[in-house]
């Protein structure tokens, strides 16, 4: 999928971040192409989440430049990142349990119909659009079911459908397979394939080696705030990645 002639959707160069005296990230370069699935791996404290938060607009980098779709961007708030087409699927999915699947997909960007000065929710349009999105993701999820009653895989589908709504160009998923059953992991990996088919770039942050090797085109390993490896998945092995994460192997 990844080819040299397409413009990378996301390009980081020389990204660094200090929190006071602590250097969380140092000189990170990376790029992600449309339709590419990149695994971001590393132990706790390796700098993965800091990196994700910089891309998502939670933090501003101390050094370096972010280019999105070819042009330099500066995010002050997460909403700025979302504005250009970067969506994050959080580990706890950020769903409101007491609302329906459709309501969650459209949370904060509800479709409305105007009746004179009053704008009322357009339940029908939201349900049908949500159903379309679930269809694209091939997830058996009913728009008017409560999220409370759903399985882990369905919840993931709802969270991912939300990113499809805005036509995100880069979706970052934080540990999407950490707390769900084996069958649901299959579903989530399926969802990632659907995103890829539609030309969306995906960054998968995960501890689970089998999942990364099942869906990713490329793997990036972080250790002590630095990028230690950036390899196509078929040129590496779980053993090598483990060695890189733990520091048994310094760089590759």
């Amino acid at each position, binding site marked *: 999928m990844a080819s040299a002639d397409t413009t990378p959707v996301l390009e980081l160069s020389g990204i660094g971040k200090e929190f006071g005296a602590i250097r969380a990230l140092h000189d990170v370069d990376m790029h992600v192409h449309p339709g590419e699935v990149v695994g971001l791996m590393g132990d706790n404290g390796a700098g993965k989440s800091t990196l994700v938060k910089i891309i998502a607009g939670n933090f501003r980098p101390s050094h370096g430049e972010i280019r999105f779709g070819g042009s330099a961007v500066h995010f002050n708030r997460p909403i700025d990142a979302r504005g250009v087409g970067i969506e994050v699927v959080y580990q706890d999915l950020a769903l*409101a349990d007491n*609302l329906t699947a459709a309501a969650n997909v459209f*949370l*904060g960007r509800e479709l409305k119909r105007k009746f004179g000065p009053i704008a009322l929710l357009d339940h029908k349009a939201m349900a049908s659009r949500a159903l379309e999105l679930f269809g694209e993701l091939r997830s*058996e999820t009913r728009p008017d079911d409560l999220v409370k009653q759903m399985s882990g895989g369905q919840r993931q589908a709802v969270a991912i459908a939300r990113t499809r709504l805005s036509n995100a160009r880069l979706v970052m998923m934080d540990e999407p397979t950490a707390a769900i059953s084996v069958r649901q992991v299959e579903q989530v990996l399926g969802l990632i394939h659907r995103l890829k088919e539609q030309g969306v770039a995906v960054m998968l942050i995960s501890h689970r080696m089998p999942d990364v090797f099942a869906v990713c085109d490329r793997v990036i390993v972080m250790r002590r705030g630095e990028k230690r490896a950036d390899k196509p998945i078929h040129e590496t092995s779980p053993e090598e990645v483990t060695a890189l994460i733990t520091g048994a192997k310094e760089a590759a």
Partner: protein
Amino acid sequence: MAMPLESPITFSNVSKVKWWRRGIFASQTGYVLLALLVLMVVMHFASPYFFTEGNMQNVAKNFSFIAIATLGITFVIITGGIDLSVGSMMCFSAMITSMVMVELSAPGLAFVHLAADGKTVVANVPGLIFVISVLAGLCAALIVGLVNGFCIAVLGLSPFVTTLGMLSIVRGLAYVVSNGRGSFPGGPDADYFYALTSGDVLGVPAPFIYLMILAAVMAVVLHHTSFGRHVFALGGNEKAAELTGIPVVRVKIEVYVICALAAGLQGIIISGWLGSAPANMATSYELNVIAAAVIGGANLAGGIGGPLGAIVGCVLLEVIRNGLVLAQVNSYWQQTLVGVIIILAVLVDRIRSRMT
């Protein structure tokens, strides 16, 4: 809700939730409504007076006296907050309203003139004093609501502590402005005031009419506007609400303002019925209001509640009170029974959610 379109997905192993397990049938509000209907049938057999027109009017009037405030606090409870200042708020708004009414009715101001007999005070514009004084009462509520909302949403104080403080502050202010004596609505517009607060239309008590209108508006706001959706989202998962870009601070301030305004309006109505606004008016009403909301199915943990539940809770409390009187049971039992019902209602809901 039927799916209005061709489904592009086939649901091979995800079955649709049965209708009796969804919506109102699976809610605490549904169970309590059922219990209420059973109780009313029992009351009918226990006392021939229960379903008389006079008694029904009485019940309708009495529960309306806390139900409007219950609608307001339901907004706050859905977001996962609480407002303990509603009782004090009722008193303060009523007091400001009647004091402003009396002040403006004093001869010498532009609002009134003396009639030819030199004694009777006549309004220059009939109804103007009434409107201004009610607006003044609601304005006081608005300010208290804004302060509550600011402390909770912007400063991040806990709703319980903030509104507990406000309970005391507002009650204290009510004593200060009236010097502890309370006040009485008076002047040329007092007749409008009494007609609109304790009067009735074709035998239906005015407070009951207001309640029905406000409940209908609330149902639309909660379920058919994005504000209502955000209120529910805030109670379901505040962090998610924030991450999805919902203006959390604004929504929170808005629900405390709505709650204070509802309590203020309720206080003004009660003072019309009492004929005065004593400084100890509506003391500890916040507990009745919260109890009614909780019995009706609003969840103090947030995310669940609605106007039907608020009203059902209030009616149940009133029917029990009324029933105990008709059945000639010592009315001191009322409070004990209310406590038992609060716990029972929540217990039944817990058992049901464990079973499914």
